[in-house]
């Protein structure tokens, strides 16, 4: 994978501390962020780092604290401890200036059932102090069009299917030009086609320079679009970084299935593979920069009877299983 962080050129930023320090390169930065509800610690001293221009996959099982974190980012919930910076502005003090540049989807869609999709968006737009009423209709139609909901714009929200509701919520997040999108489980309730559309929408937005934080309990749904990943487990951020780094890209292992594992291991060492291991009926090692096909050729040339040859890239899925235990069960 050659995906890299897309850092956008500095744009006029309204915040203090613009241009200097490390936090200005981050769309979201939290320090020691903690939320306790009674005795329950929902979020435990997490330090989110979402670089500008990144697509940040915020992953974790249901109940791991993702939504509570997102609620704190949007000033819906007051942190018990810790600090938050959004687009370089401290929260909640800077919420009035930062949040107009943030589109959000929090814990599923929620609209007035007896209003049409368009009327619901008009209402949200009317609540936005920065929105220009003169362009409202155009922006609303553009947002509806973007999520493929223009044809159903006049229908009452209550008549929408779950997928349509989800699309409307995404349209609401796109009503104004945004620097940051916070999308909590955006593919919930969508069919495979809808899921693909949302993924491609996220990619398009990211290409335009929007930073996207997308949360999911299903790794496979967001893995392909994420440049960065953070993994939550029981309220803690257990891993965070560039997806490629976390995946251990560049460090693929080879596994040779053979009746002569000792011979195979010798060849692997000769080819310069590191951490060569020998098991029953197999040998393995870290490939490094050596092309896999050369290793195969060398094995055959040395007369090693190769029954199987696998290049194993550690997947994110493997990482999650190791970090969050048994896959994606609900944490208590």
């Amino acid at each position: 994978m050659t995906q890299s962080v897309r850092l956008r050129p500095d744009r006029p930023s309204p915040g203090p501390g613009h241009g200097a320090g490390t936090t200005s390169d981050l769309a979201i930065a939290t320090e020691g962020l903690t939320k306790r509800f009674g005795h329950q610690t929902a979020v435990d001293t997490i330090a989110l780092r979402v670089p500008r221009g990144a697509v940040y996959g915020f992953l974790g099982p249901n109940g791991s604290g993702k939504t509570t974190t997102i609620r704190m980012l949007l000033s819906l919930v007051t942190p018990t401890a810790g600090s938050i910076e959004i687009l370089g502005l401290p929260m909640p003090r800077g919420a009035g200036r930062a949040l107009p540049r943030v589109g959000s989807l929090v814990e599923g869609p929620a609209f007035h059932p007896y209003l049409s999709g368009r009327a619901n968006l008009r209402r949200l737009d009317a609540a936005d102090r920065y929105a220009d009423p003169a362009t409202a209709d155009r922006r609303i139609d553009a947002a509806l069009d973007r999520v493929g909901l223009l044809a159903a714009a006049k229908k009452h929200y209550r008549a929408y299917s779950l997928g349509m509701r989800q699309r409307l919520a995404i349209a609401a997040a796109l009503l104004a030009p945004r620097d940051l999108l916070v999308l909590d489980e955006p593919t919930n309730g969508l069919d495979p086609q809808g899921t693909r559309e949302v993924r491609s929408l996220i990619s398009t937005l990211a290409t335009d320079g929007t930073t996207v934080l997308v949360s999911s309990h299903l790794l496979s749904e967001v893995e392909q679009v994420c440049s960065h990943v953070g993994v939550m487990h029981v309220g803690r951020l257990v891993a965070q970084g560039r997806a490629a780094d976390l995946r251990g890209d560049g460090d693929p292992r080879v596994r040779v299935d053979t009746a002569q594992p000792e011979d195979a291991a010798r060849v692997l060492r000769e080819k310069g593979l590191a951490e060569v291991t020998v098991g029953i009926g197999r040998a393995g090692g870290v490939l490094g920069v050596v092309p896999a096909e050369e290793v195969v050729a060398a094995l055959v040339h040395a007369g090693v009877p190769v029954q199987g040859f696998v290049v194993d890239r550690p997947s994110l899925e493997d990482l999650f299983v190791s970090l969050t235990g048994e896959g994606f069960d609900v944490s208590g």
Partner: protein
Amino acid sequence: MSVVELSPRRTASARFLRSELWLIFGRRRNQAGLLVLMAVPILVAVAVRLTGGGHGDGPDFFSSITDNGLFVALAALTLELPLFLPLAVAAISGDAIAGEANLGTLRYLLAVPVQRTRLLAVKYLAIVVFSFAATLLVTLTGIVMGLALFGGGSMTLFSGTEIGFGEAVGRVLMATAYLSVGFASLGAVGIFVSTLTEQPIGATIAVVIYCVANFIIDTIPQLGWLHPYLITHYWTSFGDLLRSPIAWDGVGSGLFLAAVYILVFWCASWARFAGKDVTS
């Protein structure tokens, strides 16, 4: 992509208020409620017309209806004052925050972002507008029905003084405005209760019970010391605006008490809502 313009628009809150009013008055449930409010003056006028009035028995305003149609409005206000109008205001104000929380739309409004104080202010303003509109609707329906069935002309007040039709209409509208202020103070209680729960129906019921309890306490002589502080105590003073000269004592106290209630409960809602975790 363009940089978001970061100066708030001056007319933004007016636009938000319009949206809020459109939400209230566009809602079927509320439209049905307003129709019920309108039905009372219509019923009064038709009933009096059919039975020919009947002086002496019944409330004051009733016996005067056949003399001047404007009294239909006053009679209707008297009938709707104990329950119908407070119920309407309770329904709207109880729904203000709890309704949005219940639907989940509250989190999206706050994330727009709408500053919480601004949200409370716009929501409460809409309640005030509704209080005035609902009361005025009763009055106007009463005036139209009354004039159609009984005619207008000069009005003989209870004090015996006769005033011209124009002034009479002015007095009726003053009484309407006075009552609206009273209902708006109940709306302040309502928006406070609405910040306590995510169940709009619960908030509405609580406000209605509160209002009825006030009326009940007001009839218990042993609790006389409490009466001047009851939110409903001075509501019936609206009749004083139809005396000549106007007896300002009750009306003045009523306006002052309403202002105090509005201030106290609006501040209470703010204190409750400003720092509240929104987990709905």
